[in-house]
């Protein structure tokens, strides 16, 4: 919205969307931290909790439509993510994975819900926090299962390698487990949401600009830009679901790796 206002105020030439469109101003000047993404994150918590409380409150053997929807999501996370990846003893992690999946999914989909239309995960701080949680969970689980020394040894020293080679390999393994994993986890989610939102901005703002242009040919082509924007919105929906799934899947894979006895 602000981007569109800027566009018309400028008046001259097309101003492409930029990172500035992600820095939304505080809703009230007195509370500097309360911006739209923060509000959306709170809203997502309310939406997710309300949905699952309502869908499980009047649980019946023959489920209502709402209960069926809620249980489908839960069954998906429990069976396809937790059980298939972690194996036995997976129930301990279902609450975390389930929360993670629904939270990320809801926030991502907010990116294409009319009026909300902003994926909070396009601010890198939110994925960082989620990745730190996952990081703490999978290392904690590994340390609890195998003990600190053995856990670190299994990470750092691949068996069956001549001693000097560890100088080459150990830093790579440590970097993988302690830096690259949490970093890629968060950056993948962030970059997908950021790029997706930017892509939609380009086509919708472009269509709007062309529609208001004085040249007839620009006006004629404007609907194509909007149509592409709408098509990309469906594409974005797919990406948003996929990213929520991948984030949860990788967390489950890391937990499974930390629990596994052999490396």
């Amino acid at each position, binding site marked *: 919205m602000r981007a569109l206002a800027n566009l018309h105020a400028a008046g001259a030439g097309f101003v492409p969307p930029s990172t500035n469109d992600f820095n939304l101003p505080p809703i009230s000047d007195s509370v500097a931290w309360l911006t739209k993404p923060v509000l959306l994150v709170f809203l997502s918590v309310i939406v997710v909790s309300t949905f699952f409380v309502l869908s499980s409150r009047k649980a019946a053997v023959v489920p209502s439509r709402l209960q069926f929807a809620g249980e489908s999501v839960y069954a998906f996370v429990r069976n396809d993510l937790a*059980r*298939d*990846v972690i*194996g*036995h003893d997976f129930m301990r992690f279902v609450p975390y994975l389930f929360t993670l999946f629904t939270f990320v999914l809801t926030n991502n989909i907010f990116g294409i819900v009319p009026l909300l239309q902003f994926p909070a995960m396009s601010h890198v701080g939110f994925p960082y926090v989620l990745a730190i949680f996952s990081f703490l969970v999978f290392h904690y689980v590994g340390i609890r299962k195998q003990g600190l020394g053995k856990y670190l040894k299994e990470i750092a020293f*691949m068996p*069956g*390698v001549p001693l000097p*080679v560890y100088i*080459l*390999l150990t*830093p*790579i*393994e440590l*970097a*993988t487990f302690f*830096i*690259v*994993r949490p970093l*890629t986890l968060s950056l993948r989610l962030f970059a997908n949401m950021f790029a997706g939102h930017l892509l939609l901005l380009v086509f919708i703002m472009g269509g709007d600009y062309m529609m208001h242009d004085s040249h007839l040919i620009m006006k004629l082509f404007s609907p194509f830009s909007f149509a592409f924007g709408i098509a990309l919105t469906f594409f974005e929906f797919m990406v948003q679901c996929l990213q929520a799934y991948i984030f949860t*899947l*990788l967390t489950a*894979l890391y937990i*499974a*790796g930390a629990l596994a006895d052999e*490396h």
Partner: protein
Amino acid sequence: MTQEPSNRREENALWSIFGYLVSGLLFWGGVGWAADHFLHHKYFTLVGLLVGMGGALYLVWLRFGRE
């Protein structure tokens, strides 16, 4: 261990390999870059990147190729 072991193992392997390659390049490339920076050379970054790549590939082979 899992319902569809082969499928999940491949998925796991994919992301592990990706992680190894990235961190191999980052770490040894970074070491090479630091060496260049402080010793005022030009070639250590390249050497570091190659060593990192080689090390990462070796790790991948150790972990997934030996089975």
